[in-house]
């Protein structure tokens, strides 16, 4: 009997459904202060002065923080970027200049949030508005500087070149030139906004309860920012209401709660972002423009080479960037076998919200680009989308990409077949042809995508060779409690992915017990000793890093349990079997009724150790295991190396009909096929696929962070931004195939990001529907108003040329 591969009830759901979860904003406490952040209404401005006297005088206000406090008590946060971008001064509050609308200018701690907001209204800030630079191409001209001290807006540039690109172009049967493509700004807008509770204790330590989803990393940046030893900062999380990468750099603002606590003599301070703040300043997904794209193809439509320039807009601060300028290369050729590639990657700061890793981070932007390339070439050369893919898909695994990444396993043609079957491809293809003959705009789009998981942090050195990061790891502690209960703690800090459940399935299989007999401690705590620098929930890695740590810890525990039980039962270790007896989980001597249960074992070690008479000193029944995937440091010069361990894949197909009377993109059918290797918990995997699909469809047709020329965010509320709701979601036919990963102990691949598959798919479907009307889809956002523009101004003449 194996629990892995089944869908036992999720352990988390009981408390969540009963409203007994503990999200950060649920934390209550006597005398807790509430923090409210005053934010800049302008995108780019000089701060002449800030007068906080009226705010400070308001009864109930405990303290007001400005750039002065920050300069006095903080050091700028460490930047990952190389010089000169490394010198961007990133503090929790603006000092003399505003760089984007929503940048914190002051913070008020008061007895209630309402009071803090009242006080914030009394703060008088004198600004001089400056012209804003909002477009990455403009920014790269360096005419308006976002950060004056670094003398440029460029934060990174690098060329990824492999094979013999020029030769391939010289020999090409066709060369397709694509003028300009654009991947728009949006984010996954988790239901729970950023929040933290901070306490600056009398001992000089800081305690944080927060919802950061990469706490191992956050702590390493937060502590030096607050001028504290890392050990003095405790970071704790519990239930987190969605993160999608978006909560990676909320440490920037968490510091404000700590500073307010310090300034008020150690009172606990809560900061809970409101939705508009989240939309303005909690981080957007990377926006990317692709110019000068040229594609070489042979006479059969096989892509032989590609060259282009990519311009990434990272908003006002780099923070986790310019990592995106490397992360994309995990999936450089996407699912395609071309060997000759030259991509010049550029990034610049602009006067917009800083970017933050967002579900599918940076790979999605590359995959969307590659899928556009494939579809535009196919459409222009008259090769159907499915054929184009079958001609170009990678088919032999493990596959080393031109830049040294190793795709572990996969079967894209099988996924295509499966998706076609789920969709009823032939029926829809016939429908499309019929509808077209009646003048209707019906299109079928395919999107293939990769969800690369378990990063090799060594790739950070491609971006900045001085960074002391490489590899990856995750920690797990497993022990038997006094009563024999199996207790597992993890460093992963989940935000809805069901880690308690899937970890318990793995433990149950290892110990041959029931998952209900395993307690998995929720959340993350740097006081628990169960963490490493890579700990967190991000970048599709739990099924590999988290579960490998759990699995490794189980092996260590089992070894100890066998030794101890063998000693107590006077039996050979190999004669013992794990199982459940009348007195609960136990070890038994095979073929006999001689057994010891877990309580007995635990009690010996913890309370009754004289029985051991000095034997088995190394047995503690409390073991820690750190899993480290087998990575090398990449070749930084050549930008070559294995950047991720596993490559889950998704293949989506959409059938859309565009009503010219409303420009609505009506999805008639949608199929999503997933391959995440061996599935640990089918229900959870299905949920992740569904969620990623819905996020992607929302991004494709509804969600965009639009700025006006002044740098004002026009979609700063849910009413304006309109995240996707159940009414907008088509029926999604779901299927999966399993190509087990040869690189993980369990055959699983990290998953959950979905690689933005719906964006590629919807772009492709709209393109297919409107190609006859002279339209090339060059933007990832295809909302009805955008479709209207496309139909009004068919762009095929200028967007693409075939030679």
């Amino acid at each position: 009997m194996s629990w892995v591969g089944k869908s036992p009830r999720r352990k988390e759901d009981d408390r969540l459904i009963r409203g007994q979860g503990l999200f950060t904003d649920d934390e209550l406490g006597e005398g807790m202060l509430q923090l409210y952040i005053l934010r800049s209404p302008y995108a780019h401005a000089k701060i002449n002065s800030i007068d906080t006297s009226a705010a400070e005088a308001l009864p109930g206000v405990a303290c007001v923080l400005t750039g002065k406090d920050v300069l006095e008590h903080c050091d700028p946060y460490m930047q990952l970027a190389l010089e000169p971008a490394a010198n961007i001064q990133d503090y929790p509050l603006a000092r003399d200049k505003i760089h984007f609308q929503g940048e914190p200018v002051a913070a008020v701690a008061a007895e209630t949030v309402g009071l803090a907001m009242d006080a914030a209204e009394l703060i008088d800030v004198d600004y001089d508005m400056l012209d804003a630079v909002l477009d990455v191409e403009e920014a790269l001209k360096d005419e308006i500087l976002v950060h004056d001290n670094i003398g440029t807006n460029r934060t990174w540039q690098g060329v990824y070149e492999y094979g013999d690109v020029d030769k391939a172009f010289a020999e090409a049967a066709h060369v397709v030139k694509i003028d300009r493509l654009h991947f728009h700004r949006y984010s996954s807008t988790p239901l729970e906004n950023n929040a933290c509770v901070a306490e600056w204790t009398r001992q000089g330590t800081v305690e944080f309860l927060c919802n950061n989803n990469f706490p191992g990393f956050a702590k390493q940046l937060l502590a030096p920012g607050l001028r504290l030893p890392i050990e003095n900062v405790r970071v704790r999380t519990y239930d987190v209401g969605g993160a999608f990468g978006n909560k990676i750099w909320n440490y920037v603002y968490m510091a404000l709660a700590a500073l307010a606590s310090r300034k008020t003599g150690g009172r606990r301070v809560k900061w809970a972002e409101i939705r508009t703040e989240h939309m303005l300043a909690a981080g957007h997904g990377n926006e990317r423009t692709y110019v000068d794209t040229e594609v070489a193809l042979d006479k059969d439509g096989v892509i032989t080479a590609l060259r282009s320039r990519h311009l990434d807009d990272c908003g006002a601060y780099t923070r986790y960037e310019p990592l995106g300028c490397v992360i994309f290369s995990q999936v450089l050729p996407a699912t395609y076998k071309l060997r000759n590639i030259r991509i010049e990657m550029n990034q610049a700061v602009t006067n917009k919200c800083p970017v933050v890793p967002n579900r599918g981070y940076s790979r999605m932007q590359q995959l969307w680009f590659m899928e556009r390339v494939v579809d535009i070439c196919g459409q222009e050369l008259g090769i159907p989308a499915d054929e184009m893919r079958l001609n170009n898909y990678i088919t032999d695994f493990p596959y080393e990409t031109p830049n040294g990444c190793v795709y572990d396993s996969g079967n894209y043609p099988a996924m295509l077949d499966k998706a076609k079957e789920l969709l009823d491809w032939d029926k829809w293809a016939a429908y499309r042809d019929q509808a077209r003959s009646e003048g209707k705009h019906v299109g079928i789009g395919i999107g293939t995508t990769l969800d690369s998981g378990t990063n090799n942090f060594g790739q950070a050195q491609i971006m900045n060779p001085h960074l002391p990061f490489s590899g990856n790891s995750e920690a797990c502690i497993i022990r038997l409690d006094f009563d024999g209960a199996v207790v597992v703690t993890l460093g992963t800090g989940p935000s809805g992915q069901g880690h308690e459940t899937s970890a318990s399935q793995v433990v149950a299989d290892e110990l041959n017990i029931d998952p209900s007999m395993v307690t998995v401690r929720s959340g993350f705590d740097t006081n628990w000793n169960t963490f490493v620098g890579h700990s967190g929930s991000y970048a599709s890695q739990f099924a590999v890093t988290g579960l490998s740590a759990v699995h490794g810890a189980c092996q260590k525990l089992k070894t100890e349990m066998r030794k101890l039980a063998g000693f107590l039962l006077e039996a050979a270790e190999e004669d013992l079997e794990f199982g459940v007896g009348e007195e609960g989980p136990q070890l038994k001597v095979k073929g006999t009724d001689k057994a010891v249960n877990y309580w007995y074992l635990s009690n010996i070690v913890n309370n009754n150790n004289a029985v051991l008479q000095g034997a088995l000193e190394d047995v503690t029944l409390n073991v820690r295991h750190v899993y480290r995937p087998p990575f090398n440091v990449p070749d930084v010069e050549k930008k070559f190396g294995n950047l991720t361990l596993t490559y889950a894949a998704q293949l989506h197909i959409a059938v859309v009909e565009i009503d010219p009377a409303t420009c609505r993109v009506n999805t008639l059918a949608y199929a999503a096929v997933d391959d995440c290797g061996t599935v640990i918990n089918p229900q959870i995997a299905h949920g992740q696929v569904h969620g990623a699909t819905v996020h992607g469809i929302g991004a494709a047709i509804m969600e965009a962070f639009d700025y006006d020329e002044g740098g004002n965010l026009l979609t700063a509320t849910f009413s304006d931004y309109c995240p996707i709701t159940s009414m907008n979601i088509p029926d999604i036919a779901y299927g999966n195939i399993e190509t087990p990963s040869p690189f993980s102990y369990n055959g699983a691949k990290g998953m959950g990001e979905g690689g933005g598959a719906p964006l590629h798919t919807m772009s492709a479907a709209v393109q297919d529907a409107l190609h006859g009307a002279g339209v090339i889809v060059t933007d990832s956002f295809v909302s009805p108003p955008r479709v209207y523009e496309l139909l009004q101004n068919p762009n095929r003449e200028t967007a693409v040329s075939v030679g």
Partner: protein
Amino acid sequence: MYPAPFNYHRAGSVAEAISLLSNLGDGVRALAGGQSLLVLLKARFDTVTDLVDLGRIRGLDGIEAGNGEYRIGALATHARLARSPVAEAIPIFQDAANGIADNQVRSRGTIGGNVSSGDPSCDWPTLLIALDAQVHCEGPDGKRAVPVNEFVEDLYLTVLGDGEIVTGISFPAPEKGAAGAYVGFKRCAPAYPTTSVGVQLTMDGDDCKDVRVSLGSSGLTPIHATGAEAELRGKLLTDDVIVRAADAAVAESDPIDDQRGTPEFKQLLINTLVKRGIGVARRRCAGEQVEVSHEYY
């Protein structure tokens, strides 16, 4: 999100509400369901010194029919209206009530508050223009009734004077055989329509005997599309006539450029929705059961 502090008063009667609203200065505002007002106050886009809660005034939430007209109290909520006999009798009513936001908003928001918001994106004023409704007001100078298409003067501005409140809405019962449709185009439930159109049609055989057409989210106020009506009234409803009516409606609209779309895109929608509305209204006039409300992204 928390509003700035204000004083709260609960009015027990219309007279008390009027007196409170008249005597508490410039910063006083009536509060009904709070679904527009509290949103503004919480975002601190607006501040008030005093709120006069109308919610407990008895007898202001009636939904009645008789003497050839319908009378609806200002405090009737969207949700109650959607389930009321009026909605059953007049399909256009149901179309609108069910299409307003989500359950939470419908359970709290009132027709009086919706009309008083003076918001061109609100559904009720547009719909009520199609039904030729009167807005009943009461203030320090007594009672008056204002035709709904004259009630909203400009963006967020109504004819209500100081201390004056809306007590109810009334409209003539549609003739037998008359029917309408209220259709909108929306991104999702909790967002206001991108544009919406109300059509109330009275047929005489295949001819349009009488018609009212109204446009929502199509300008700074809800619009009574009299030009479109003129194209239809007294005519045989051929495709050509309907196209001309839709074009006329577009010419009467003046939509703004915002997150929901450009003016040109919205005019495409207006054109489409007028045609669609006429089509549905006509089928309903012929006795067909047609379910419509809004089309979502």
